[in-house]
């Protein structure tokens, strides 16, 4: 049996400041070493000042993953030398001497399977290394500390996954979850990083590091499982080691570094007092937590009678479910959910595309109302939506400029039907014989009106004329 465990590093990208200082949490697109202060580059004499909101957000993630939050949390130093680590230790949390990390012993259901969460800890991100030089001899390392001290939550699971697919589903759920809680944008570059560990049967555990993207996690795990299984088949023992994912060659490679043998010499970080969380705070944090994906799905089904599948799709996407919640009213909820799930989600399915959308809740709501009041056909509605998404113009403007107004007055429709009767004598005769072929004539009317004719009115008049 394959057993897979994960360690996920998730930056709290929605915070304003770093974990221990007032520098900006968002370090991307800044010139090298411009987002630094004495604390985050470890200038002698500086002291860490823990970010309150980071504690609260990490507590939210812990609660969402069913973890227990202790009464008191503490911080530890993990000592190792690396140029991206300005103090040559990382301030993190550690449970070996008693649980003091923000979360522990949680669980989450994924496709009917329980994944246990071992612990959740709050820690600082190191800086970034840039390698310069072509040959190994001339190679030097350039360090940018803008990222140093960015708040990070590490989520450690038990080895409860059996397949890479389960891992992928879990990661998608987790990404939706942190986005939904409003703690992180999981799609920012480097915002969510995953390490895995795999063992086959009673075999040794292999750590997989350096996996760049979610998609690659599945690939790396697949490769590693195949590699281990073929070793086992040939009677070769799998070594306990750390392997790095080689993105270019799509294989895992043994890393000769002694990283796993390192002795981190953990010790309590005395510059940060023990933080009293207390039951009151936990209750307070619970009230501040946004509605969970599961709860939202339930609400959609119960309150609006949405089909389970639609509710699923809508509730797990924070952006579109927010849009739904802001645009619908009692009357048009179903139509709004239709517009969003069948039309809009197809138009913009990536983060970048979502950001480009010029549509507002008002647009969506008016569009739904117009369709319900028969001012627009569904088809025309779709054209209007596409235009609003691009231009941000009001529905009225779009209907005028695209000439999408619904033709529902009997006079106008009758005129068009008369034209069709002249052009389609054969079809008219056939329809008189066989009423089932009437749809052909409806189609012709629609084509002539560019889909604007009200289908019910059209059908009514057609029937009358054929009978007469």
């Amino acid at each position, binding site marked *: 049996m394959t057993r897979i465990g994960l360690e996920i590093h998730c930056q709290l990208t929605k915070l304003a400041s770093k974990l221990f200082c007032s520098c900006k949490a968002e370090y991307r697109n800044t010139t090298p070493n*411009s987002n630094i202060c004495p604390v985050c580059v470890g200038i002698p004499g500086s002291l860490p000042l823990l970010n309150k909101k980071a504690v609260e957000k990490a507590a939210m993630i812990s609660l969402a993953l069913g973890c227990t939050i202790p009464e008191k949390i503490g911080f530890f130093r993990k000592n190792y030398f690396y*140029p991206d680590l300005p103090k040559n230790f990382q301030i993190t949390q550690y449970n070996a001497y008693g649980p003091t990390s923000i979360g522990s012993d949680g669980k989450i259901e994924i496709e009917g399977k329980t994944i246990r969460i071992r612990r959740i800890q709050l820690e600082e991100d190191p800086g970034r290394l840039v390698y310069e030089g072509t040959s190994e001899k001339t190679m030097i390392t350039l360090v940018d500390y803008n990222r140093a001290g960015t708040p990070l939550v590490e989520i450690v699971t038990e080895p409860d996954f059996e397949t890479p697919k389960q891992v992928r589903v879990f990661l998608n759920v987790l990404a939706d979850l942190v986005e939904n809680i409003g703690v992180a944008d999981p799609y920012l570059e480097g915002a969510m990083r995953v390490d895995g560990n795999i063992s086959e049967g009673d075999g040794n555990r292999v750590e997989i590091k350096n996996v760049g993207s979610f998609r690659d996690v599945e690939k790396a795990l697949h490769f590693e499982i195949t590699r281990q299984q073929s070793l086992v088949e040939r009677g070769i023992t799998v070594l306990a080691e750390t392997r790095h994912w080689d993105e270019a060659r799509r294989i895992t490679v043994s890393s000769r570094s002694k990283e796993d043998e390192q002795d981190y010499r953990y010790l309590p970080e005395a510059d940060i007092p023990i933080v009293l969380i207390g039951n009151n705070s936990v209750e307070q944090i619970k009230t501040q937590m946004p509605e969970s994906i599961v709860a939202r799905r339930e609400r959609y089904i119960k309150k609006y009678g949405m089909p389970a599948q639609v509710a699923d799709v809508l509730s797990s996407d924070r952006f579109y479910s927010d849009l739904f919640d802001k645009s619908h009213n009692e009357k048009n909820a179903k139509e709004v959910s239709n517009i969003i799930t069948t039309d809009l989600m197809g138009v913009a399915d990536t983060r970048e595309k979502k950001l480009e959308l010029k549509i507002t809740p008002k647009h969506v709501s008016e569009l739904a109302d117009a369709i319900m009041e028969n001012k627009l056909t569904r088809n025309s509605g779709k054209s209007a939506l596409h235009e609003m998404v691009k231009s941000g113009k009001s529905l009225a403007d779009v209907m005028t400029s695209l000439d999408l107004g619904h033709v529902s007055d009997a006079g106008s429709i009758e005129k068009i039907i008369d034209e069709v009767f002249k052009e389609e004598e054969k079809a008219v005769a056939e329809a008189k014989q066989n009423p089932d072929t009437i749809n052909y004539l409806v189609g012709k009317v629609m084509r002539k009106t560019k889909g604007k004719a009200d289908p019910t009115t059209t059908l009514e008049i057609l029937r009358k004329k054929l009978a007469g």
Partner: protein
Amino acid sequence: MVERKEIEHLADLVKVDLSEPEKYIKQVEQILNYFDSLDHVEFHSDDTLGIQIAKDDLRDDVYEPYGDSLIEHLKKDQNNFIRAPKMV
């Protein structure tokens, strides 16, 4: 008994080149032997000391840029990077 190998291992942990590891052997051993007395203390409680802070007294999440250009005080190259040696 502390041996040269052990001193070298400790020196590797804290990243210090020791020109004469022997110089440290006797004293480190003597001091560690003294520390061993801690192992014989009878404790009636598992308490440890430590100061505490209420969560609400922690720093508010506000971005305040560090006024001074700190990098100017550090060893930097012309592109404001810190230069480190090669890693391998």
